[in-house]
Each structure stands twice: as C-alpha cells, then as structure tokens.
C-alpha cells in the first residue's frame, strides 16, 4: 500500500510503516542523524533529525515519526537550521576540543563543521565515568568522546541481545557502563565489537594488538572478502597496511560492510571481527617439509616436495590399488580448492574416496 505526502513542497509517495527519515532519504533529502541505525528501533535521542511537520507544534524526530497521508514535511528551514546549529554547538561544549586519533572519522565533528556549528561556546570537562580498568582485549571506551546516542547499548540489547552495557547514572553523569563497571570480560559481553562499529564518535574503539597497530593517518587498502569461520558467510572488509611485512601487506583491522548491503547486515562476531592474529602468526608453515628416515623434517623446495608427495601417493596406488588412497578435502578451503582436490582424487588417482568433515 502506498500513499503520498508533501516533502519540502513536493508530492512524494511512501509505503505504510515508513518513517519520515526513510521517505526523505529515499528522495535524496539530507537529514543528519547520530543515533539512527537501521538495525535498531528508533530512539529519537540525538535530536539531530528534527523536521517540521504542519500541525505539529514541536519538531518531531524524522527517525521516529511514521509518515502519514498528506503530511506536510519540511526538512530544511530557518528554524531547522537554527536548531541544528544550536544543538551541535551544545554538543561541542561537551566534547574534547582536540580529538584523539582514530581509525574511523568522528561523525559529530564532521557534522558540526558541515552545519556551521559554533565552536566557541566554551568547553566543559566530561563528567562521564569510564571503567576503572578493563582487561578485555578488544574494546576500549573513552567516555570523553561519548555523546550518549546509545547506539552501542541499543545494539548490545536489540541486535546482539547480550545486554552487557547500559546507560548508567543520569544527567551530565550519564555514561555507558557495565554492571558495577566491571571489565567486559566479567560480563555477558560476547566481544562482538558491534559497539565499536556503531559508535559515531570513536568513543568505543578497537584495542588493537601491538602487532596490528597502525597510525590512523596511514592509508589502508580495504579488501572485501568472506569470513573464514562458520557457515553464515559474513562479508567483511580486510583493512590492509600494504607496506607492512616487507611489502607483503598486513591485515591490521577488520570492519563490517555497511548495514543493509550483505547477509550479515553490518554485523560480525568476535571471531570475524577480531581473531586475525593467526594470519601472521610465527607458527605458520612457510616452507615445504619432507620427513627424513630418522623421523625429523627437512626443508625442501616446492619441486622436491611435490615430487616426493606425488611419488608417495602413486606408490600406495600401485601397490594396493587406487581405493587404498583417501583424500580428505576441507570445508575450510574454497570451492576451487575443493574442486581440484576431488578432481585430483578422481581424475589423477582414480578413486572416489574423497570427503571432508561435513556433518552439517
């Protein structure tokens, strides 16, 4: 069912259930938001998206107001501009004057610049408490940078549903807290890092391991790939420092694609977002190895190793027949890897004894 309303003087259609924000953005209107995330129920808390609607004395938040037939909506007016400037100027008085370096942009600061907020209303020291110490390995919380949009707490509740973090205290002391301000490690937190992903100001940020730290100013190459853990097939963006590892490149950070674009809808779990130490781990096998008569391994060239492997398998086949060979492929490897292994088994060695761990 579609209906129509008037958006900045133009008749536009909308479908039942759409919010003013959705309708406006669909029609190319610019409405700033900080607390909005399509995965979350609207909170209307950041107040940046207020618009004018005929018959409404107060400006309603576009994110939380459903479109109704024949509404007259204004997304830009003197009143709205004054509101945005005033609001963002207020936000700045409660925000550090100098920003710590972050791998992601500070959306509040960018927005304040864009809408011409005053930067000279003075500055107040934050009254927000952080956690005394948090030995969790992944998530750092910097209360000074927090604007209480509550995206992180709502994400933790509505999407991840672990409720490890909450709004605590009230008034200017309102902050993001765990129960008793305990370390995330001692709470229901599953370390998915969604709070980092949704934070607009970098108050929630990665605690990257030393080996993966990189200057925010450094240009990172972003490579879209598929997660290598479970079978959901989350899309993820590998952020690569191309000059690290003598030019081999290094995955320093993993981020989720924008919500609404992939199966995982912008979400990742703890493994998908953080578990990448293994990529450059010193335990990686880097040289082919051949067993010696004394039981030890010797390093070998590829030619030699392939030859020994091929000969060994061929010998078993010639002695006992092709079906004395077994090929264990891997559900962890790519389609292409699996295709060539089964072809190796069937076409090159002549047996259908080819399988992988595939109980589900």
């Amino acid at each position, binding site marked *: 069912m579609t209906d129509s309303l008037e958006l900045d003087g133009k008749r536009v259609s909308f479908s039942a259930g759409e919010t003013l924000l959705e309708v406006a953005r669909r029609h190319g209107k610019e409405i700033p938001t900080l607390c909005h995330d399509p995965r979350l129920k609207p909170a209307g808390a950041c107040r940046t998206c207020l618009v004018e609607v005929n018959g409404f004395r107060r400006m309603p938040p576009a994110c939380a107001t459903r479109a109704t037939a024949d509404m007259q909506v204004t997304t830009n007016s003197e009143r709205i501009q004054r509101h945005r400037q005033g609001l963002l100027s207020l936000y700045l008085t409660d925000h550090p004057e100098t920003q710590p370096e972050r791998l992601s942009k500070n959306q509040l600061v960018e927005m304040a610049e864009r809408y011409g907020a005053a930067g000279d209303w003075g500055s107040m020291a934050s009254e927000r408490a952080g956690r005394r110490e948090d030995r969790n390995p992944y998530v750092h919380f910097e209360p000074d940078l927090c604007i209480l949009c509550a995206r992180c707490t709502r994400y933790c509740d509505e999407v991840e549903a672990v409720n490890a973090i909450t709004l605590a205290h009230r008034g200017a002391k309102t902050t993001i807290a765990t129960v008793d301000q305990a370390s995330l490690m001692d709470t229901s937190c599953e*370390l998915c890092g969604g709070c980092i992903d949704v934070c607009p100001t970098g108050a929630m940020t990665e605690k990257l391991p030393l080996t993966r730290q990189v200057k925010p100013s450094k240009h990172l190459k972003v490579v879209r790939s598929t997660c290598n853990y*479970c079978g959901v097939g989350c899309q993820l963006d590998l952020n690569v420092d191309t000059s690290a590892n003598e030019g081999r490149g290094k995955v320093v950070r993993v981020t989720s694609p924008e919500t609404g674009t992939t199966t995982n809808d912008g979400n990742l779990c703890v493994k998908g977002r953080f578990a*990448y130490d293994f*990529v450059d781990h010193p335990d990686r096998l880097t040289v082919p190895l051949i067993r010696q008569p004394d039981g030890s391994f010797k390093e070998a060239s590829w030619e030699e190793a392939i030859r020994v492997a091929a000969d060994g398998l061929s010998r078993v086949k010639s002695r006992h027949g092709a079906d004395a060979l077994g090929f264990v492929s*891997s559900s962890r490897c790519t389609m*292409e890897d699996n295709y060539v292994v089964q072809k190796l088994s069937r076409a090159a060695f002549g047996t259908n004894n080819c399988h992988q761990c595939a109980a589900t």
Partner: protein
Amino acid sequence: MTNSIGEIRDADFLFVIGSNTTEAHPIIAMEMKRAIGSGATLVVADPRSIWLSQLADKHLQLRPGTDVWLLNAMAHVIIGEGLVDQAFIDAHTEGYEAVAEAVRDYTPERAEEVTGIPAEDIIWTARRYATTEKAGIYYTLGITEHSHGTDNVYALANLVLMTGHLGKPSSGMNPLRGQNNVQGANDAGATPIFLPGYQRVDDPEVHAKYEKSWGVPLSPVPGMNLNVMMKAVGKEILGLYVMGEDILLSEPNVSRLEEGMNKIEFLVLQDAFMNETARFADVILPAAIFAEKDGTFTNSERRVQRVRKAVEPPGMARPDWEIVCDLAKAVGHDWKFENTAQVYAEMVRDAPKFAGISHERVDSEGGLQWPCPAPDHPGTKFLHEGGVLRGKGQFQAVQYRPSEELPDHEYTLVLSTGRTLYHYNAATQTRRESGLAAKQPRMFVQIHPWDAKQRGITNGERVEVYSRRGTITADAVVTKEVRRGCIWIPLHFAEARANLLTNDAGDAVTQTAEYKVCAAEVRKIPEQVLSAE
C-alpha cells in the same frame, strides 16, 4: 537451508533444535533475535540451557538423544488435532499415511517420560508450529551427530511436510552449516558419492559426461565417506592426502585412529599450521590462508561469495588449489588453470545447478544463491517454491532408537560435545588469538551442581573426564546449564582432546559419528597428581 538467512528476521515462529546458535552461528542468532524483537515466538529444544533459551518463550530441555520422541510426539499432536496442511500433503508429498501410523503411539504423555519435557509444552509447541504460517525449523549438529541422526532429520522433515511449511518465505528446514564452506565443499564434489552439483558417481549418464569432459577414465564406484575412511585407516586405507583438516583432533575415538595412522604407508599434509596429524605426515605442504588467496565460499543459504586476496602468503606458502594442480601435474595431469575464475568456470560447465554462476557475476552482484541454472537467472532465495523439488516430498516414518552408548553403573553420565563462541573447531586459528585465548584459555567440563556434589567436585576444580576410550583433564564448571546426569565439553583443545572420549558409532546412512551422546564419568584428581602438575 531451504530458506535464506535474511528471511529469519520476518519469521513468526522459530523452532531451534540442536543448535547453540548464539555461539556457533552468532550472526544467524542476531537475525533470530531480530525476529524475537519484532514479536516472533521462539522455542529452543536443547538438553542444555544454552544462551538462546534465555530469550525463548519455551525451552524444551530434553534428555540427550531423545529427539525422535519429541518430534514424533509433536507430529502426533498435529495429526491428532487436525492441524495438518492436507492440501499440501495431497499435492506435494508421498507416504503421509505411514507416518501417521508410525506416530500413533507417540503420545505427549509418554514422550514426557522419555524426553523429560512436560507434555503440555510439547502440545503447545506443536500447536504453535503448525498454526503459524511463517514457522521455520533451524538445526545443526545437535540433530545430526547421533547414531540416529538421519532419523532425527527425517522426523523434522515430516513436521515440515505435514504442515506445509515449505516453499514459503521464513519457513522451511534450515540446517546451519558449521564451516565457512561446508556447503561449498559438498557442492564442489568433495564427497564420495557425488561429483560437483550432486551428480552421482554411479549414474551412468553423469559418469560418461565427466569421463568425456575430463578426458580420463573414472571409477563408477562410490567411495568411502570420512567416518568409514577413518575407521579404515591402516587397514584398507594406506595412503592419505589431507588438506586443511586436523583429523587427529576432529575425528571421534582418536585413540583407535592413532593406531591406524601408525600402519599407514604415506601421508601428505597440506595446511597453514603444524597440527596433531603432522606427527604422521611424510610430506608437509605450506598453504595460504583465506586472506592470501582468491576464490569463493558457499554459505549455509547456498550463497556463493568471493574470497579475495588481501595480502601475500608468508615465505613459500601457496594457495591450496595451486599446490593441488602441481601435484596433479606431477602425476601426469596438466589442467592448465591460470586462476580460480577458470577453476570455477570448469566446475559449473558440467554442473547445471551452478551453470549461471561465475566469478564475474559474483563480483558484480555481491553473491548468488544456487540453483542458478543460467547467466540471466537471479538465483534462488528459498527452495521448493510452489512445490517440492524432484517430484514429491517423501515422508519417512521413523521409530525411536536409543543412542548407541548409554550411561551404566560404571559410566553414569551422558557426555555431549560442542563448540563455544570463542573458539573454532580445532582452534588452530582462535587459540593463536590472544584475546580469545584469554577469554577461554583451557578445557572445561560443564557439570550439574547435583552431580558435582555427589563427586565432591567444586567449581573451578581440575577434574578428570573419562569414557571407555580415554581420559582427559578439565576445569569443572558447576552449572545448571546442563541437565542433571549430563556433562558437556568443548571440542577445541588439543591438549585435552574431546574426541579421546567420544564414540565413533556412526549413523547408518551418513556415518556421521555420535559426538553428542556417549557414556562418561567425572572424578576428582588425586592430590599427588595435582601437586605433580
């Protein structure tokens, strides 16, 4: 999965059985939570109070291995109360009468005795499932890793068919795949019965097609599946090529497998890390990991997505497919693949289900769900729309069979194994991640407070867990998360291998091992042993 991950959020009824979704498939769990947030009803059937059960409207905490009783009793209620979708049954299925007959004696009251689930909860669940249009079933290894795993799946399928919850959005029967590319590995033909695209090796037409296509003679005899192969190691199987799996950690009853490995003549191991299996290897080939290579994974919902090279592999490590091609060339088969796009193209050439998919399309469209028979086909979101693939949906009457090994006076507890959120399978990757290692550093065993008390065990204490096949040590976690009489251990820890304990009794059809039920026992570690540690 018959349906897509993206459809879960719109479901009105979620029946999650044998799946610890929040830990094993966190992102799918998020979709389930989203459905719950919009008002969907969630029923969790699991012996453990898994995390998801906290969000559930009902938690059916059944005794391990009694799934058939639960599912048949649900069928009993649905049939008895006339809640079946007769039109769907008539139009699209066969064998309904046999099932109706088979479940006649599975009353909810008797099911309560066997499963431990209150009869009224079984009735409630059956009614809600049958009468909710968008009702989906989600399951994983808790259903399949039993000696009667196939029966469990049939019993589930019977429910789906009799209620017509098939071929519609947000419904269906959805096994959640455990590994990134389980679906893909099977699709690609890494199975003993099927060539790529589920074409049987013993189908003469298929056989002829592939002999012609590949230009070599092929064996028409189905091969051994993994469970059979592992039992045959050292006997019929004397040479092994193992890519990317640590069979000595992941296979059940590993003591027996180790014996077999000692008798093997030649073993090639291809992996990114040293592992347990390497102890028996003659050649070890260093492989690239996913961030270092190109290709595709196919996820649980049959979606083909790209894997892209982001960094160079370390040292001399190379992508698996290149190594395999070299190996083939060394035995006289030069396939001349220059890149993975060409490999994929060859695969789809002979596999009609995938014929429309290519790297190029996946690149531009972000992902494609098969069946996708032609380059202009949009892919398939959910299967069986407007009917059932391959003719009629076949009902399969099943009867309850107890698990192979049940507790007795010597081994009084039921042991189940599984995954945790913080590790992955053999944990070769996750235990090399400092943060995850800190969150879950070592082996633990969940035990009910009552059972712990009986044995004088306190929370956090080091204990021994043993079965007829082996013994491991673990930290006791005393929790009501497990039922009384049941214990649970994760499978991730190499120094305390869960599979020293598990039973390799396989399912009659799939030969999948009974990882979920075996008889075991827990005891305190004598003082002197502890001090020696």
